[in-house]
């Protein structure tokens, strides 16, 4: 085994004297020619660790050597030899692709004679060659990351530090990024890839799993998943409501964790626990329990001691929504043009009551545009967005009071306290007097917010922020929920807790529309609309979509396979159409 590029020993860091440790006792090596995954939810200490390695922070205690250098003391020498891609602000959005690369070449001191060759190689490698004149700010999320990677690679580094390169990147671009990073590792470069997507851990050669500043695990991903081998099962052939089945399964002794995967329910069992009785969880007469290969996330939850359980106190306190026939949310020929660019064309779908509908699609395909039109944040050029039969454009106030909205960034007021946030949002939704008081107190109780009531929202731990954001969004008991990448970056336990609430509310008749890049999240959907090039190219349940790409090569396609396959198929269809038109 070759010498380690990075040797960290008992590395610890705190941002201010007296503050909690952001990183605690991390001992880990990073080797050349390998992709090392730095895996953990937001706030786990990933960025702190990377910044320590890059010499941008000085360790509070412990030691770290990078390429044999002390990063804090010899940062100039170190920066010559590493590539670092920060999470954001890595690029100058007002410069073109080529200008960004020239700037980085200048900054990194790439000799002028080598520039042309280097640029050609990197542009070819990242597939950005056709876009050299485009402004970085106008690139899609995936292309931005590729450009960031190209800029970090300008001096052919020995060690490449990538801070969450896959955030906001669709599955297709993600796969491409992975291919590139693999190629770099094969050339002998050491790559550190930080991510909050646990499924990416499985693709790494080695994994450092961080949680709350501590290193929970370091080693091969297979070692990690090995600890739950034989304890992961799928309940297949569920008839009836699989959300209720999951809730009941999580109530069974010996079930540590569970999620919905399309029409199946996936469960992690405690060691030596028998598989759950299908009768007890009322999964239906045809239900069977099948063992399945474990995933990294299953093992992570196992280390953390299991998921949060299946009962949503929020849904418990909620009354059943009055039953309505027909669709609750509907897109009718939604079209949006920006100048001569058509971002969305003739989008049609209808969401029934009590359904979770997912909008998926690559970056820049029209998914966000569609979502914004559905929420009333964007006015359609043609067509209508209907909520509860009301057109959003016309009866704004009335239609909007039926919507609960929660965005990825948890749109809370950071300087306001938890209670003040709750009171504000209850006021905004026109709750008054006793109703308002009940709503606020109810949310505090349901989400166990009372220990944090006077804390500013900004200072809350991520899990509580997520709870507060959800509380603010549902306080007025909306029959419809719009969720925009609601659990991006949060830890798996918080994500499960969130989906438990959503599932519970859906059982009460709430209708949900969600956009996500997260395939795990998409598995919770009853139906998915796949948006590409401004149109809905496929619509159906997660299993329907998987079915469409099933082949001999791919006997058990994942949802990500389905996503990639369907988009590629549409590309080919589009190409042949264009050829026909040209002929």
């Amino acid at each position: 085994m070759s010498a380690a590029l990075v040797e960290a020993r008992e590395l610890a860091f705190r941002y201010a004297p007296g503050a909690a440790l952001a990183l605690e006792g991390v001992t880990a090596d990073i080797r050349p020619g390998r992709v090392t995954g730095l895996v953990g939810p937001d706030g786990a200490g990933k960025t702190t660790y990377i910044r320590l390695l890059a010499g941008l922070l000085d360790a509070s205690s412990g030691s770290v050597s990078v390429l044999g250098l002390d990063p804090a003391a010899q940062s100039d020498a170190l920066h010559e030899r590493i590539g670092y891609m920060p999470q954001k602000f890595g690029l100058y959005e007002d410069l073109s692709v080529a200008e960004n690369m020239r700037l980085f070449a200048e900054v990194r001191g790439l000799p002028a004679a080598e520039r042309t060759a280097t640029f050609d190689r990197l542009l070819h490698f990242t597939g950005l060659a056709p876009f050299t004149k485009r402004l970085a700010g106008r690139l899609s999320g995936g292309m931005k990351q590729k450009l960031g990677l190209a800029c970090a690679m300008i001096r052919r580094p020995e060690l490449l530090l990538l801070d969450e390169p896959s955030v906001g990147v669709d599955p297709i671009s993600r796969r491409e990024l992975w291919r590139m990073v693999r190629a770099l590792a094969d050339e002998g470069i050491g790559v550190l890839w930080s991510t909050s997507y646990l499924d990416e851990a499985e693709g790494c050669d080695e994994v450092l799993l961080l949680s709350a500043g501590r290193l929970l695990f370091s080693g091969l991903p297979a070692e990690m998943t090995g600890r739950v081998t034989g304890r992961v099962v799928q309940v297949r052939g569920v008839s009836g409501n699989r959300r209720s089945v999951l809730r009941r399964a999580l109530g069974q002794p010996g079930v540590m964790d569970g999620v919905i995967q399309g029409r199946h329910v996936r469960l992690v069992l405690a060691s030596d626990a028998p598989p759950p009785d299908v009768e007890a969880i009322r999964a239906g007469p045809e239900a069977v329990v099948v063992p399945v290969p474990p995933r990294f996330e299953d093992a992570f939850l196992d280390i953390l001691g299991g998921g949060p359980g299946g009962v949503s106190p929020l849904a418990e306190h909620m009354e059943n929504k009055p039953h309505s026939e027909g669709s609750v949310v509907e897109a009718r020929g939604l079209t949006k043009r920006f100048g001569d660019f058509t971002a969305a064309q003739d989008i049609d779908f209808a969401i029934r009551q009590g359904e979770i509908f997912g909008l998926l699609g690559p970056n820049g395909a029209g998914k966000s545009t569609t979502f914004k039109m559905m929420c009333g944040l964007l006015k359609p050029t043609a067509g209508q967005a209907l909520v509860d039969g009301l057109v959003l454009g016309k009866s704004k106030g009335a239609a909007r009071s039926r919507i609960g909205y929660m965005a990825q960034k948890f749109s809370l007021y950071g300087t306001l306290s938890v209670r003040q946030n709750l009171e504000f949002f209850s006021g905004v939704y026109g709750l008054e007097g006793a109703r308002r008081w009940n709503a606020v107190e109810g949310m505090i109780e349901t989400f166990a917010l009372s220990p944090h009531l006077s804390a500013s929202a900004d200072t809350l731990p991520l899990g509580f922020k997520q709870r507060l954001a959800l509380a603010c969004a549902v306080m007025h008991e909306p029959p419809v929920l719009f969720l925009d990448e609601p659990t991006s970056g949060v830890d798996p336990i918080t994500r499960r807790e969130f989906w438990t609430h959503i599932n519970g509310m859906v059982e009460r008749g709430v209708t949900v529309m969600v956009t996500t890049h997260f395939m795990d999240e998409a598995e919770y959907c009853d139906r998915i609309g796949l948006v590409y090039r401004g149109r809905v190219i496929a619509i159906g349940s997660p299993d329907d979509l998987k079915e469409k790409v099933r082949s001999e090569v791919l006997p058990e396609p994942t949802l990500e396979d389905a996503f990639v396959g369907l988009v590629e198929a549409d590309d080919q269809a589009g190409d042949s159409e264009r050829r026909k038109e040209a002929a």
Partner: protein
Amino acid sequence: MKFSRVKALVIKELLAVLRDKKSRMVLIMPPLMQLTIFAFAATMEVKNIELAVLDKDGGKAAVELVQRFNGSPSFTRVFPLSSQGEVAPTLEGEKAMAVLVIDEDFSRDVAAGRPAKAHILLDGRRSNAAQIVQGYAQSIVQQYNTDLAARAQQVGPPATLVARNWFNPNLEYLWFTVPNLIGMLSMVVGLIVTALSVAREREMGTFDQLLVSPISPQEILAGKTIPAMILGFLESLLITSVAVFLFHIPCVGSLWSLFVSLLLFLFSVVGFGLFISSLCNTQQQAILGTFTFMMPATLLSGFATPIESMPRFLQIVSLANPMRHFLVAVRGIMLKGMPFFTVLGIVWPLAVIAVVTLTLANWLFRRGLE
């Protein structure tokens, strides 16, 4: 418009500013610092003048004139030169702001009642200060003349009394500067609070959250206007109190006139702030927008340069500037005790400006949804 929703917005806005230690400081410390700095730095007065004297005459009249310069508080150092050759190096080396040259025949001419000549040579590089020093020197000489004339005819008031008023313009400048600063600093607060708050919400994503709620654009506007007015008003009261109690600027007019003008002024400023913020997506843009507005608004306010001496075109433009109207009113109220109806006659355009800018902001807010 629903009252409870607007109320929720107003409370949220005030809390968002006041709960944050940094923004609390920003609202209180910089305006007070600026007030102190501007009050003394923006004075038109020239102090601590160094004067060199080349007295070629040496007679009684010449010595008396030099003594008068010596006695003036503006000329802190008066020193003699011994030859004509020293004059140029003294000015060049900035050893003195000016050189007073008294001709050989000065005392003789004075005694004979003929016009007597003294020259003052000024450092023209500091053109503004030079003009002011010239004015001081002129008035000293004039006073000297008056005294001479009075002595010759044995009539007229005692010279010293008149001279003192001439030579201590200090107070008067502070009286002019500080009320203007009340307007300027209140404007900064009103603009920053409104322009930044919308941009911040856009950056944080909370603005989308507001837009998907049943709140109407008008309610959002009201929810932004009212807290900015409250904060701006408190801020102006603070600055006014400092002006009155610390700088001893008289406030002879009625407080009511002052409050009404202040509220109208803030209303129009907030209108501009919201207009700027409806055009900006980030806080950075909002700050740039605020300063792009601030600079011309200050220049076209009549604070530094008189509006009457501007080109006709700029005079018309300055009518849209809230500061222009308010400064006249605040000076009139504080220093002259301007009656309420005269004040109204001056400040009514502020209401028009506010209505126009708020309407535009409202329209742009809606357009943002397209």
